């Protein structure tokens, strides 16, 4: 017997990259800050451990870069920021997401009698 898929987990997995791009489009952020926002904002990730492999992927694709800078609270931190390619990827995702959610909503909406 095949276990029913945990669609919440599957959905989060599909959008975590876009959510990171979306957060970084507002301002550069450091890892802890990103993890906090992603966990608090709808549990997009389960733990900070999930964040870093995604950041590695985004950097390898040239959508995110990082730099060291002093933080407000003192010690220097590694900040992540969007590249132009990252902004383009986010734009594409926004368009796809709008179409996708519209289609899925239509497909799963209960029939009105």
């Amino acid at each position, binding site marked *: 017997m095949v276990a029913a898929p945990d669609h919440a987990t599957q959905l989060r*997995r599909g959008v975590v990259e876009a959510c990171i791009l979306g957060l970084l489009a507002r301002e550069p952020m*450091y*890892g*802890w800050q990103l993890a906090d926002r992603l966990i608090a904002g709808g549990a997009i*990730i*389960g*733990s*900070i*451990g*999930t*964040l*870093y*492999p*995604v*950041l*590695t*992927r985004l950097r390898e694709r040239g959508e995110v870069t990082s730099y060291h800078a002093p*933080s407000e*609270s*003192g*010690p*220097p*931190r*590694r900040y992540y920021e969007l590249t132009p390619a990252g902004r383009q990827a986010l734009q594409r995702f926004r368009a796809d997401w709008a179409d996708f959610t519209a289609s899925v909503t239509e497909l799963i909406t209960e029939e009105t009698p």
Partner: protein
Amino acid sequence: MTLTPDAYLAELERLLANADPVTRQELVDGIREELAGLSPEEADARLRELGDPAYVAVGMLAETRDAAPAPARAAEQDGDAAWYPVVTVLLLTVGGVIVPVLGWIVGLIMLWAARGWRTLHKVAGTVIALLGPGMLLAGLVATGTTQVTQVNPAGGGDSPNPLIPPMVEAPFPTWWMLAIVVLVVWIAGWIWLLVAHRARR
């Protein structure tokens, strides 16, 4: 939380010893940066937020594994079990003798279903497998021919001259030399197939 920040990070690094080193270092540095300059109580509270090191490590390992590129995943599943080529070769060699015909058929199916052999190997394996029954058949025919030639010696009804030892008919040594060559090729073929499979695993 009883772990000090140093112990926590050491445990995390230990759990992620086999993970991608760049990503692991970035994660550990990210947590260390957050804890830097905090009082022990504050650091402890931060670590409580993170959860157990194992929880963080599993998060990273699961994310890395799920996003692994398809070729890497395919490579993991590429090999047949270690026994697979051996059983296939045994079926194709002696399997058809132990369970007539069926043994060879199952062996051929296993040969063609194997992931560890290329098409070239599968074609060669089929040809080599056919050599086995071929040899048996040829051996029977050869024995038959030899018997016939011994029963019907040339001489038009006269009994053979007892002073002349019965001629070893020409087909006899030729058949045997051919059989030995085929046998050597046959055995070498199976060894080649087994080695080729191991090299692919």
